[in-house]
Every structure is written in structure tokens, then in C-alpha cells.
């Protein structure tokens, strides 16, 4: 096998980890609250700036800055729900999607206002690992491993705890949650915080590999939505699998053609698949 192709495949798998994390967060929010946060990637962007600002301007250690950024984006998630979603929970779903679209503009512009349009990065250079003839970025490997750990932690939380079970239960029958002694509003807030926290974690992992700029959300936001829809909106395991399928398409096509061509192909595959199987690839 072509060594460069193998490298592309490995990079695809590593990219898939972070995309899977994002898809999990988005799917959680969709499944539980029944809204699409179209500004989800902009929350990630906010987290990336938070890490950048805390380390470069405030001199915090990277790990501490990452922890703070995760909390910060979790708080943003709570605010998104309280200020934007909760007031229009009863109106048409498309209005909720569009309201978070306004947030997308808001966060992009605010980032431009605060940080300008320059590309910023951590200034930390992680080593390249050599495995025989294959070169793997340590940052990507780290991001992949942490993303999988994050996903595993979420899985344990959702399957083992009372709160996690309640979050899954809401997605199945929201009207009777009161009869279980569950305050639905509280579950929505906690879910929003977890969704935000996952975006914050993804932000830390992405900043290891990429520069941040106000419009970075537009580069991976649409791909994240596609992954969720392919997996079946709200279907967490489906989204997880779809993340690796899509990232593989991007990595391998990117190797043979160009990076734009690979994204074009991914979007076209997405459109075609949705038109064939609108309920998602992995639903029965």
C-alpha cells in the first residue's frame, strides 16, 4: 500500500475523533432539546479564543487554560439555552435554528472585534512521531485519544447515572418527565452545559492543530451538521460512526485530489445519501 495513502488514512481516523466529539455534542442537544444549534462551531471558535487568550495574553498554563475554556463554553451553552432557545421553545423548529444562526453572526463579529481577523495559534509546537516511514503529528494523536476519552466519559455518564438516564429518557418521551420527578427545564440546562462543554473540549483539541480566526467555524461547522444528519439527528452512535466515514472520505480524496475537492465530495455524498435515506444511515 502506498505509504502516503496510509498516512492519509491514519490522519483521517485521527480527524474523525474530534469530529465525532462535535457530532456527539450536537446530537445530544438535538436529541434531548430538539433544536439544532447552527452556531455550534462558533461556540468551538469561542473556546479556541478563550484558550489562546488565557495562555498568550494572561500567561496561564495550557492545561489550566483548557479547563477554564471548557467551563467557559459550557456556560455559553447554558446562556444559549436560557436566552435564545427557552423563549422560543414552543415556536416553529426552524425559528430556533435561525435564532442560533443570529448567534453565529454575533459570535463571529464579536471575535473579529476582540481579536481582529488575524490567524492565531498557541505557539506550542508538538513533535512529529515517526513510525517507520509514516509521519504522524503528535497533536493529532493526542486530540484523537482525548476525544475518544471524552466520548467514553459521556457514554458512562449517560448510561450509568440517574441524570444521564434522565437525559436519554427525555429524548424518548418528554411529556411525562414530570411524572418521574424530573424538572425538564433543569435537564435542558444541564444538556446545554454538556453540549457546550464538549464544544469546549473540541476547541482545546483543535487549537493544538489549527490556527483560530473568527471564521474558522464555517470550515468545520457544516461538516459537523452533515455528520449528525448522516448518523441520524439525535442518534449518538450513528453520529459517531458517520464522523469516521466522513473524515475518511475527506482524508483519502484530499490525498488523491485537493482539499476542496474532498469537501465537495463529502457534501455531495451527504446530499445524495440524505435524499436516498432521509432518516439517516444507521437508523432501522
Amino acid at each position: 500500500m502506498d505509504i502516503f495513502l496510509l498516512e492519509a488514512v491514519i490522519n483521517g481516523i485521527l480527524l474523525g475523533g474530534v469530529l465525532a466529539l462535535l457530532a456527539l455534542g450536537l446530537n445530544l442537544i438535538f436529541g434531548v432539546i430538539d433544536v439544532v444549534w447552527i452556531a455550534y462551531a462558533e461556540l468551538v471558535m469561542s473556546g479556541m479564543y478563550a484558550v489562546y487568550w488565557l495562555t498568550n495574553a494572561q500567561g496561564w498554563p495550557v492545561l489550566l487554560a483548557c479547563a477554564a475554556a471548557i467551563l467557559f463554553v459550557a456556560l455559553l451553552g447554558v446562556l444559549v439555552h436560557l436566552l435564545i432557545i427557552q423563549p422560543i421553545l414552543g415556536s416553529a423548529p426552524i425559528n430556533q435554528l435561525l435564532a442560533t444562526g443570529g448567534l453565529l453572526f454575533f459570535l463571529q463579529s464579536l471575535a473579529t472585534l476582540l481579536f481582529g481577523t488575524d490567524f492565531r495559534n498557541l505557539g506550542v509546537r508538538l513533535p512529529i512521531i515517526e513510525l517507520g516511514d509514516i509521519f504522524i503529528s503528535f497533536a493529532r494523536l493526542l486530540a484523537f485519544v482525548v476525544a475518544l476519552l471524552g466520548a467514553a466519559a459521556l457514554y458512562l455518564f449517560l448510561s450509568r447515572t440517574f441524570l444521564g438516564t434522565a437525559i436519554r429518557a427525555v429524548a424518548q418521551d418528554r411529556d411525562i418527565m414530570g411524572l418521574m420527578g424530573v424538572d425538564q427545564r433543569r435537564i435542558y440546562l444541564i444538556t446545554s452545559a454538556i453540549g457546550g462543554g464538549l464544544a469546549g473540549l473540541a476547541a482545546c483539541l483543535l487549537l493544538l492543530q489549527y490556527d483560530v480566526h473568527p471564521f474558522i467555524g464555517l470550515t468545520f461547522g457544516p461538516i459537523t451538521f452533515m455528520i449528525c444528519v448522516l448518523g441520524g439527528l439525535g442518534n449518538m452512535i450513528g453520529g459517531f460512526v458517520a464522523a469516521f466515514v466522513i473524515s475518511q472520505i475527506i482524508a483519502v480524496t484530499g490525498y488523491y485530489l485537493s482539499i476542496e475537492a474532498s469537501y465537495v465530495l463529502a457534501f455531495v455524498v451527504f446530499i445524495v445519501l440524505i435524499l436516498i435515506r432521509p432518516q439517516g444511515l444507521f437508523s432501522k
Partner: protein
Amino acid sequence: MTATANAATLSLTSVSAGYGSFAALFDVSLEVRLGEAVGVIGPNGAGKTTLMRVISGLLRPRRGEIGFGAQSLSSMPAHAILAAGIAHVPENRRLFPRLTVEENLRMGAFIPAARRHYGERLAWIYELFPRLRERRHQPAGTMSGGEQQMCAIGRALMSKPKILLMDEPSAGLAPLVVDQVFELVRRIRSEGFTVLIVEQNVQQVLDVVDRAYLLESGHIRLSGTAPEVARDDHIRRAYMGL
């Protein structure tokens, strides 16, 4: 203890309720005393489910007062009413179909007071319904109707409620299974639970309750002890086919 046992623990006073422009309950007054089993019978669309939803807080009453001990439930949200000690087994069971049996039971113990006793309650429910223990890792939606009803009742019992509301537990079940469900109700009674049960299956429900109310078109038409109600001419003609 005897004094409190005779006092009404749940009391509805002139309660009216409905959905939008549609009114379903008119001026309903009713009471349930501690240790009692009370039935509400009536035809389809009489407002029986609305009555249950109003008591458990899924629906706000438009007028009237709902008291529980010294508390007023009229403006309490549903999750607080469960914490106050009223559990509701909803119409059509409403299990979480993709959660396992055990996860459904876990949901029943969500409130902090119940969470502390989760292990022992789970053992108790499995003792009460051994079938649920066998099926505990199975998604609840894949069980038979009777088993699902068992699970729904078990889920409600996990919070050790002072009163158990049951909405048509026999609906949609085969006749043989209906007998089993009423057997379950008897066992719950013998465990000392106070029960308010709504049913269309008039003859069988009158066998398990102490007192009963007749609800027709949103009005309470009749009330009395179970034998009294069973002897009533209107009931016998309209509901027992006698």
C-alpha cells in the same frame, strides 16, 4: 394514627380543567383517604385521564383546589408533586421504550429521596415482580403489554409514593392479562399503598376498590362504596350490561 387515617389525604374541591377552548372537567370534588383504594369509572372521553393529569400536575386546573395533606397542589409543577408523594402510572404505560427495564425503574427513583434507597427499592420491586428481574436488561419497548404494565407500576412504586394514581391499567390488554393486572393491583393494596384508579373495566375495578366515583362528561354523577355503586341501576345498565 387512626384520626389521620380517616382524614382525607387527597382532596379535590370544585376542580375544573380543560385544554384550550375545550373543557373536560366541571366542578369535580373527590377525596381519597389514607390506606384506601378508590376507583373512578366512566365511559371513554368522560375526563378520567384529564382528572389524573390534573392531580399529578401535568395539567393545571382552571378553577378549584387540590389539597394533599396540608399542602396545596394546584400550582405545583409535576416533578414537585411526585416528590410530595403522588406517583402516576400514565395511560398506555408510557415506558421509555429504548431504555432497559432497569433503566426505566431507575427513572422512577430519580428524586433524591428515592435515589438514596435505590438499591433496596430495586430489590423490593424485583421481589414483587420477579418477571422484571428476568427482563431487567431488555429494552422496555420489546416486552409484552402485561409485562410493560408491570414495569410501569414498578417504576411508579420506586419512589414509595403515598398515593399511586393508575390510569386505565387494563387498557389494550388481552382478557387473561387484564386479570393479571387486577391481581397486581390487589397486591399493591396488600402492600399498604393508597390507590386511586381510573378504569373502564367497571366490574373488575369495583372488586378491588373500597369506594368509587362515576365520572360522566366531566361531572361526578355518583359516588359510594364499591358494593353500593355495583348495585346502582344506572351503573348496572350502562356499564355492566345487566
